[in-house]
């Protein structure tokens, strides 16, 4: 994902302009990975695999994930065209590798669809919760989570397999240390071919609306004016 402070731009032929953009592991996925590493610290039997759908330029970020504490990395070698494409590819990967706890971000910070976890869960018939702000494992099998619902927060006990869309404060982001970086060099990064599937959505053009507005300053001694202005606009 482009860093959250990046200025987003597109080239004339409608492609993302990656000049001067630093790429990061998406902030929500970073929370998911951090919590997985914390759980592994408590139970060494846990094996963490990380998966990305993207091209080879993402390999350095996968190495970072390995340095943070993942055991194995996989990359499905394709552009992530749309949510359905990504979910179908993840679902195929999961059914082949039999993972039982699948942590994702609440949403990606580029297309913000917030669908990939639900779509993957729907394809595989796996219970999915989103957004999840707390995750623990009790008695080596009971998964305890906290998830937001309309009325508040539910604390839930669920069984594996599960798909969870993670968000803060599930864990603190982790920065790789030197030992982790050295260790990551010898860990496996496996590249696999994507599922043969056409994109469902076609992005025709991208516009960047200006956030700059004509500001009206109100003097702090004349606050009534603000109230009048808002009344004038029927607000």
């Amino acid at each position: 994902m482009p860093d959250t402070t990046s200025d987003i731009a597109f080239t004339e032929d409608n492609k993302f302009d990656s000049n001067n953009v630093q790429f990061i592991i998406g902030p929500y996925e970073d929370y998911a990975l951090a919590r997985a590493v914390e759980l592994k610290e408590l139970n060494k039997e846990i094996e963490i695999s990380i998966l990305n759908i993207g091209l080879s330029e993402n390999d350095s970020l996968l190495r970072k994930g390995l340095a943070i504490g993942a055991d194995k990395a996989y990359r499905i070698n394709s552009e992530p065209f749309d949510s359905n494409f990504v979910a179908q590819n993840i679902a195929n990967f999961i059914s082949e590798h039999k993972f039982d706890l699948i942590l994702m971000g609440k949403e990606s910070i580029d297309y913000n669809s917030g669908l990939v976890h639900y779509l993957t869960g729907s394809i595989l018939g796996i219970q999915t919760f989103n957004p999840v702000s707390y995750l623990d494992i009790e008695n080596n099998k009971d998964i305890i989570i906290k998830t937001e619902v309309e009325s508040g927060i539910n604390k839930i006990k669920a069984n594996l397999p599960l798909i969870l869309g993670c968000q803060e404060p599930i864990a603190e982001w982790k920065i790789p240390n030197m030992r982790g970086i050295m260790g990551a060099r010898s860990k496996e990064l496996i590249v696999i071919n994507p599922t043969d599937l056409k994109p469902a959505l076609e992005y025709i053009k991208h516009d960047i609306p200006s956030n700059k507005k004509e500001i009206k300053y109100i003097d702090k001694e004349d606050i009534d004016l603000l109230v009048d202005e808002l009344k004038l606009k029927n607000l």
Partner: protein
Amino acid sequence: MPVLVFIEFTNGKINESSCQATTLANGQGDEVYGVTTSTDKNYNSTLGLKGFDKIFMINDFKNIECLSKIILDHDIKIIISPGSDLFREISSLISISHKFSIVSNVKKILDHKTAITTVYTGKVESEVNVINEKIIYLINKNIIESDTYDKNTDIIKIESKNLRINYEILEETKIDHDISLSDADIVVSAGRGLKGPENWKMIEDLAKKLHAATACSKPVSDAGWRSHHEHVGQTGLKISPKIYFAIGISGAIQHLAGVNSSKIIIVINNDPDAPFFKSADYGIVGDAFEIIPKILKALN
């Protein structure tokens, strides 16, 4: 060709997002069908006014059999829905079972198969063409004023068995607020400029006076001054109220990403160079501790 709308209720009323989805649906199809889990007869009289030709009452959105029946019996090809988490989940189930394509974060529907969506957390607007004929549009909040209609609404109840849940709810914590942050028309939000959690009373007072929800910036929720549910911004909640008050918030790009679709932004900050002023409709340079009481007084 009928358009189907998912209806949510908030505090006993059809919520504004569902009304807006219905208004969009009335611009798309000959007939507009709604589906709801509410069975309260009191709402029936207002359904025609809201623009529904038919309403299907079901037990549970997650019971895909009921929704499948509606979709197949009425040859539904377009669904327009508020973009809440529940409806993202339901849309995903329908997408996989009935081969619908989902378009998220819709700002405008241009024609049957094209829409403008907001991406990169509101920084970019993209025109998207859907290749498939069957489409679910998940719409952003406050993208249209809802209209009123004069329709006779048929109400059809679809009975089904309760779904078996394979998890256990250990504890339910109700969030103690009268107005949901994501649905609020007015949001009063504050940042580190408030200096400490003990100073939030005036923010709460102002919110109460304006019938608004309260929110905060990420450093505030990270410091534990306010709950994480109030955090708006790139990694928090994205909101689009009619009025957003930003009090003592400098306006980092990540914060703006969560609030930049607010209709009117009012920034109060004692630093005249705070970047937030560049995105504000109204700005007041000064100390929040001096200005908020003045706003409260002016509102009285």
